[in-house]
């Protein structure tokens, strides 16, 4: 089954929800006219990225009529849009919604909020707690992770293991490091390309990366959206920094072909991962002996102080 994917590599206006909504409606129509079955927008495409204290002012609840209107524009179409979601208990999330056939089908709340370097997301947002693949009208499972979510190895893997064959990553990635030695003259682009191709290959899934362009304050977003085949081959790379609606045709049957010939997912050892993860969690919590800690280190710590604690507690005490 052939699917035409439209990548809306747009430059949202910071804090201008109505204007960005209007643009989304426009591009959904343009995508439909271009024969697309799926239109993907970047992270916070409806609000802009560097919101700071504006976040609460542009937040929408899932029952917001503006969201329903946007969903209403997706008859016979799938779309991934991203915005600030306010929960019933007034937490603010960076969210992405899968809209299909006029309905809001699935919500992903960003799990990993970078708060280091030029990022300050955790100050303004709550982190999501749920990671789920979702069925879609496209006939394959869809897995959504927002920007930084895909800098955590487990996210694309869990989505694929949960049934996703199409991994979608809406991003607002700030471009930086112009060292001449970089593949395309931009360090950020080099890193993302390496990661996304790797994920596509090791999850034997399609990866759709939609990154915004434009400028918020000091930050320039670099675009370079991509669609990558389950073989790890980039089928399409959008230009850096150029706004546009780019369409790419993919053969969804390529997932089956690749998974039969390279059965990595079949061979994944979920029980092994779950067991070892459980052990590591217990060690970090001081509930089990840590095999790599200094002998005698306090439970939950891994370094033995120069002057040992007089009364060690927990596991270390029991080990002595």
């Amino acid at each position, binding site marked *: 089954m052939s699917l035409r994917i439209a990548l809306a590599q747009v430059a949202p*206006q*910071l*804090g*201008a929800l109505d204007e960005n909504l209007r643009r989304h409606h426009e591009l959904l129509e343009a995508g439909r006219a271009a024969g697309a079955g799926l239109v993907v927008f970047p992270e916070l495409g409806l609000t802009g990225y*560097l*919101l*700071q*204290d*504006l976040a609460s002012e542009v937040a929408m609840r899932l029952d917001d009529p503006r969201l329903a209107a946007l969903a209403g524009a997706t008859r016979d179409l799938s779309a991934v849009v991203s915005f600030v979601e306010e929960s019933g208990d007034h937490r603010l999330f960076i969210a992405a919604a899968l809209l299909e056939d006029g309905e809001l089908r699935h919500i992903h709340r960003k799990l990993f909020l970078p708060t280091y370097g030029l990022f300050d997301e955790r100050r303004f947002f709550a982190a999501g707690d749920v990671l789920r693949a979702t069925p879609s009208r496209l006939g394959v499972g869809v897995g959504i992770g927002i920007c930084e979510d895909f800098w955590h190895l487990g996210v694309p893997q869990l989505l694929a293991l949960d049934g996703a064959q199409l991994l979608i990553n809406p991003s607002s990635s700030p*471009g930086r490091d*112009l*060292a*001449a*030695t*970089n593949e*395309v*003259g*931009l360090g950020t682009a080099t890193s993302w390309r390496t990661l996304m191709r790797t994920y596509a290959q090791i999850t034997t899934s399609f990866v759709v990366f939609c990154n915004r362009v*434009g*400028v*918020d*304050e000091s930050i*320039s977003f670099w675009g370079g959206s991509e669609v990558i085949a389950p073989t790890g081959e980039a089928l399409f790379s959008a230009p*850096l*920094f150029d706004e546009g609606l780019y369409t790419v045709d993919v053969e969804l049957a390529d997932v089956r072909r690749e998974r039969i010939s390279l059965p990595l997912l079949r061979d994944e050892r979920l029980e092994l991962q779950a067991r070892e993860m459980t052990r590591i969690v217990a060690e970090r919590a001081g509930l089990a002996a840590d095999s790599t800690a200094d002998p005698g280190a306090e439970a939950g710590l891994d370094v033995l102080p120069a002057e040992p604690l007089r009364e060690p507690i927990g596991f270390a005490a029991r080990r002595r």
Partner: protein
Amino acid sequence: MVALDIPRDAEGRPAFEIPVELEIDTDVARRVITDFIRSQLRQAGFERCVLGLSGGIDSALVAYLVADAIGADLLLTVLMPYQTSSAASRTDAEAVVAALGCPSELVEISPMVDAYFGQATAAGQVGAGREEGTSAGPEATSTAPEATSASAVRRGNFMARIRMAVLYDRSVTFGGLVVGTGNKTESLIGYTTLFGDSASAFNPIGDLYKSQVRQLALAMGVPTAILAKAPSADLWPDQTDEGEGEFSYAELDRVLYWRIDRRRSVDEVVARGFERALVERVDGLVARSEFKRQMPPVAKLGPRTPGVDYLYPRRRPGSART
């Protein structure tokens, strides 16, 4: 890596060196910066820019970038010489104006500066850089008139602030935003005048080291005479940055790059072959000028304080000039 066509001096030696680790992709830099300039203007509700053209490479490069971004006719370049400014600076600035075809104004600042200090006959006694906030204390009281007793530091700072005042006035008459022309090197070592040359609405080259400014200027076609000459604040005759600071920009840029961008320790930078004394001196300059790179702290008293816990993007909805 591309072979760079660096201008050569009379003996055929390259006028400067661009350290390999500092080389940037100039096409990407040009693209990011021109988009940045257009966005800053659009988001602020402006179409025009104003900048001070000194005849040096930094302001020349910014003029080229702005002209590239919005067209030369929307850029007002202001030449603001003092009576001791070198003739070459004026010629070089005029060469930029001629090459770009942008509007230009000449504003002599001598009357304004001299009105404050008095007529200077010996302007430019060699001072110790443009550093402020040092522990040196007030200058010794002198019976000589300020025209002759004011240090080069005071005169240089005053000139920089007069130029700032002129640019912000021209910002109104021309209806353009003042574009900053300071580079990353001088910002990091504090070789700037607070509220003087560091004042701007936005700065397109503030994250480029001097060596990278040179590389981009080369790529943008900035006149060779400007590329080849020794960088100078032109605050007194024959002053050069490198002479005053006793460093070469290539070396200084490398130390800053490894210490700051690549987070190497002093020992690690020394292990790369730099003199420990130089690395420590650079560290000291960076630490002592931290105050110049930040907004002044406001005493926190109320429930919500701008810059502390009232945090809005400057280009929020409704912020643009209408």
